[in-house]
């Protein structure tokens, strides 16, 4: 096969892939077709795990070590069928936090720490160099196979420059493929489709060679088994530590390899695809592995002894003249190498630009103004990173001599990326994992890996001199790179894996236990570990602060491009219900903007940019306190309003009660007025009547005198009534003038009895008094008090209906109060009338007999109230009994200066 035809074939294939990617991306922009998110596309994209290592190196591995090669695929199988443990959580977090790379995830988990982002990026770049070198080596070797077959046309240059050409070609191709634009979610739909196509090509090619070998070279499976048993690899050695260790290592690598993380988490468009991939991906791996041993066995049989078993996939068909099949195999191998390099270098370039270039650029910017075109800077940074990564891979390839087996190179890379595992898995499941712990673990693991595996892999005298390898640095045998701490006899790979992971995990655990996480770390820790407990978690809310939306628009324009930024902002204003291009800087808008920017420049850089514009770095404790103050103020205001409301209610109630009372009083007044008019009218009627009779003139003189006397009596009665009314009114209003004097109670009672004796003088009353008890001097208004006493005694004289009426006057002194009881021996006042006798106009018998208006007791009550005492009816005393209480000394009238 002429070399230039080969090159042409390669270029054509690459162009074909490119065309597919381009077409799909156009279709996706127009409107994402459903099939793009099908689980089968997702599963096939995961096949990026199988690179030229699988295509060529697996057969070589099998030819050298028997079945051990299968551990590289058993680990991912276990990890995928056990998706419920780790992968489900990983993908969920990745989607929720819009993670853009493994460095982004680790940095985001530990408080958006840029330091961790840098460390992880550097580890990934260094660990990827052997892997890329492996791809270069395989492509170069495969070119070499075909170039040896023919010798016309271009002659293939030597392997070193071939390697260089291949590296450059791959770099160019990757730059063209992967850095044409910046996607918000860091998703490259076109590339995913291209990889899926390439996965099919790989599988078809390998299976074709396998089928050919089993059924066309050998005679079917049974014959293959016979050949296996007859081959040098009939007996293989299972080293338990290697067997278990490699399964564990490959299980780790399938999630920590940057390219695997990219297709597994970042490019995931639907979580449910994971359920299908959980069995479909292991099926793919099994299909790729099932023909490896047959091809190895047949190759060992048919090809000369020194043939490179890594290339059996090509050389076996070639040796039986199947040029076409060999071409197909060549394309399969080439495409597997190409796709690995493309995806890996894009993933690495994303990490480098987001976590190293952008933060450095941000910190070097002198002013607040976002000047320059950030988008172009990011894209250029990525292009340079891609070229750099490939350059490093080429350097490793040329340094390591290109003679090691492919598989051994790949395993070095595996152990390197496995260093991310403690920090990542710890972060997913342990809320106590902190940034300090993660950084300590990563650095320790990286140093140990470099010391025990990476640097020795360059060969005995390139980095470590032979003496260092044999006797340890400075002769310290316990620090020998491949026999640390006396662990002699361990396989170097497992030795490196063991010590690096032990050191990593120990440093991680200790660092986490002894350090205290920042608030953002704790929030992120909660969001990550408890991701299944919340459907929607808001990792950080933005305080609006002093954000100028126009500044945000400028920033977005520079990073996303003018049109996309304007479109985004306009959508936001429409969602907010306004128009124009400047929406309100609400927290949800800022979050959405941060996510969009994170797709272009990484979460940490986007966060930092918006934080600068917002004028504060993070939600600080001070912010929280301020918010708490505002809340407290609002609560205070609302409680004050509550008080005011309660007061208003109280006032309204009181007004209602007052209104009711006033209504009642008004009713009472009406009743009073009607009563008075009734009382006044009665004597007036008599007076008028008799006056009229007298006016007639012809009344005999005796009758005239009688009638005149009646008129006189009635007039007196009327006057008395009016006096009483006036008195009562004065007493009630409290405008009475009290004449306070010191007076002897005995004298007062004497006076009262004398005055009351005028009532029914014909009736003999027996009066019982206890004179010693009456020997008190009281300071009060004597006339008024006498009035009360007179009234009471008069009432008794009028109403007592006993045959031998008696009145008993009992005086008692209780402390500062004097109690005077007037008790007669009549029939008393019936129970149901006892409470109304003090009311105005209340009379128990008809009026003519009493001769009064019924105001007497009412007046007494008012007088006693004015004198600071009281008058009450005492029931069950054997007759009508009234108790008068009053203070011994009334200093000043009860109602003084009443208005």
């Amino acid at each position: 096969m002429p070399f230039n035809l080969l090159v042409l074939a390669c270029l054509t294939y690459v162009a074909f892939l490119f065309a597919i990617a381009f077409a799909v991306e156009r279709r996706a922009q127009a409107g994402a077709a459903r099939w793009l998110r099908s689980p089968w596309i997702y599963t096939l994209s995961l096949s990026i795990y199988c690179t030229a290592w699988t295509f060529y190196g697996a057969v070589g591995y099998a030819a050298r070590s028997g079945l051990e090669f299968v551990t590289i695929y058993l680990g991912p199988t276990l990890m995928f069928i056990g998706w419920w443990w780790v992968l489900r959580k990983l993908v969920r977090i990745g989607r929720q936090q819009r993670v853009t790379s493994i460095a982004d995830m680790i940095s985001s988990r530990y408080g958006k720490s840029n330091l961790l982002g840098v460390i992880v990026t550097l580890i990934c770049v260094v660990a990827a160099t052997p892997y890329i070198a492996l791809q270069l080596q395989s492509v170069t070797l495969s070119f070499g196979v075909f170039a040896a077959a023919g010798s016309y046309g271009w002659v293939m240059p030597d392997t070193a420059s071939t390697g260089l050409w291949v590296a450059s070609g791959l770099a160019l191709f990757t730059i063209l493929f992967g850095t044409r634009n910046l996607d918000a979610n860091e998703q490259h739909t076109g590339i995913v489709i291209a990889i899926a196509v390439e996965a099919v090509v790989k599988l078809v090619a390998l299976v074709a060679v396998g089928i050919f070998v089993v059924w066309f070279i050998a005679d079917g499976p049974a014959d293959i088994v016979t050949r296996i048993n007859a081959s040098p690899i009939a007996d293989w050695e299972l080293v338990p530590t290697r067997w278990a260790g490699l399964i564990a290592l490959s299980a780790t690598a399938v999630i920590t390899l940057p390219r695997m993380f990219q297709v597994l988490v970042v490019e995931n468009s639907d979580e449910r695809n994971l359920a299908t991939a959980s069995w479909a991906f292991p099926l793919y791996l099994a299909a790729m592995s099932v023909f490896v041993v047959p091809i190895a066995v047949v190759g060992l049989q048919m090809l000369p002894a020194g043939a490179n078993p890594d290339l059996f996939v090509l050389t076996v068909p070639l040796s039986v003249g199947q040029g076409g099949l060999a071409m197909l195999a060549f394309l399969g191998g080439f495409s597997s190498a190409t796709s690995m390099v493309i995806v890996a270098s894009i993933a690495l370039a994303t990490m480098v630009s987001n976590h190293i270039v952008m933060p450095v650029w941000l910190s070097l910017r002198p002013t607040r103004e976002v000047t320059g075109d950030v988008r172009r800077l990011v894209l250029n940074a990525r292009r340079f990173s891609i070229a750099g990564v490939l350059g490093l891979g080429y350097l490793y390839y040329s340094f390591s001599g290109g003679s090691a087996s492919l598989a051994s190179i790949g395993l070095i890379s595996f152990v390197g990326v496995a260093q991310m595992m403690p920090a990542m898995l710890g972060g997913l499941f342990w809320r106590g994992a902190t940034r300090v712990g993660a950084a300590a673990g990563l650095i320790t693991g990286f140093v140990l890996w470099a010391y025990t595996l990476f640097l020795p892999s360059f060969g005995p005298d390139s980095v470590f001199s032979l003496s260092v390898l044999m006797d340890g640095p400075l002769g310290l045998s316990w620090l020998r790179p491949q026999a640390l701490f006396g662990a002699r006899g361990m396989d170097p790979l497992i030795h490196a894996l063991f010590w690096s992971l032990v050191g990593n995990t120990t440093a991680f655990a200790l660092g986490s236990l002894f350090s205290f996480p920042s608030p953002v770390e704790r929030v992120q820790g909660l969001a990550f570990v408890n991701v299944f407990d919340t459907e929607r978690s808001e990792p950080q809310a933005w305080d609006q602060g002093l954000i100028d939306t126009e500044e945000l628009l400028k920033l977005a324009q520079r990073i996303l491009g003018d049109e996309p930024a304007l479109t985004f902002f306009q959508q936001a204003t429409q969602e907010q219900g306004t128009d124009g291009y400047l929406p309100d800087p609400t927290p949800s808008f800022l979050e959405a903007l941060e996510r969009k920017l994170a797709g272009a420049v990484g979460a940490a850089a986007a966060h930092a940019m918006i934080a600068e514009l917002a004028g504060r770095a993070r939600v600080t404790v001070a912010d929280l306190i301020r918010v708490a103050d505002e809340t407290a103020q609002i609560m205070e205001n609302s409680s004050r309003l509550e008080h005011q409301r309660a007061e208003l209610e109280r006032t309204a109630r009181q007004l209602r009660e007052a209104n009711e009372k006033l209504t009642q009083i008004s009713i009472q007044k009406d009743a009073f007025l009607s009563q008075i008019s009734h009382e006044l009218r009665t004597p007036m009627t008599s007076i008028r009547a008799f006056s009229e009779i007298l006016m007639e003139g012809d009344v005999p003189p005796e009758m005239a005198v009688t009638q005149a006397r009646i008129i006189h009596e009635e007039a007196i009665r009327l006057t008395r009534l009016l006096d009483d009314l006036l008195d009562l009114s004065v007493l009630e209003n409290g405008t009475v003038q009290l004449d306070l004097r010191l007076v002897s109670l005995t004298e007062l009672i004497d006076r009262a009895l004398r005055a009351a004796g005028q009532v029914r003088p014909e009736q003999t009353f027996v009066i019982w008094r206890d004179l010693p008890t009456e020997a008190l001097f009281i300071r009060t208004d004597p006339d008024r008090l006498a009035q009360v006493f007179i009234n009471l005694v008069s009432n008794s004289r009028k109403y007592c209906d006993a045959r031998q009426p008696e009145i008993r006057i009992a005086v008692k002194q209780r402390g500062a109060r004097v109690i005077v009881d007037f008790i007669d021996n009549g029939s008393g006042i019936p129970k149901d009338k006892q409470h109304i006798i003090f009311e105005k106009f209340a009379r128990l018998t008809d009026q003519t007999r009493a001769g009064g208006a019924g105001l007497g007791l009412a007046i007494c009550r008012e007088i006693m109230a004015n004198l600071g005492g009281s008058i009450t009816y005492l029931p069950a005393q054997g007759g009508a009994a009234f108790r008068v209480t009053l203070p011994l000394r009334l200093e000043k009238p009860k109602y003084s200066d009443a208005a």
Partner: protein
Amino acid sequence: MNRRGPVFLARRSYRMRRLRDGARLLPVAGTFLLLLPILWQPSATEARDTAFDGIYIFAVWAGLIIVAAILSRALGTGEEAEAPAGQEDDEGLTP
């Protein structure tokens, strides 16, 4: 803690939970089966039979794939009931 939930669950949700448990146990079983060859030959005293071991490994592999396919199909339809799954994650097993 969801200890206040009912003691006797409906059959359907019980089955769902057992399916999830099955999904968690499958890789454990797979690991055990795939590490079993270590026990057959503690150290290389007598050489191993590549053919036999190869067939064993691929048989186990195929079995794991088939069981995983069945489980994921059964679980895939229950994926919509994520909330119970999320709460259930507090039950006993960590993830």
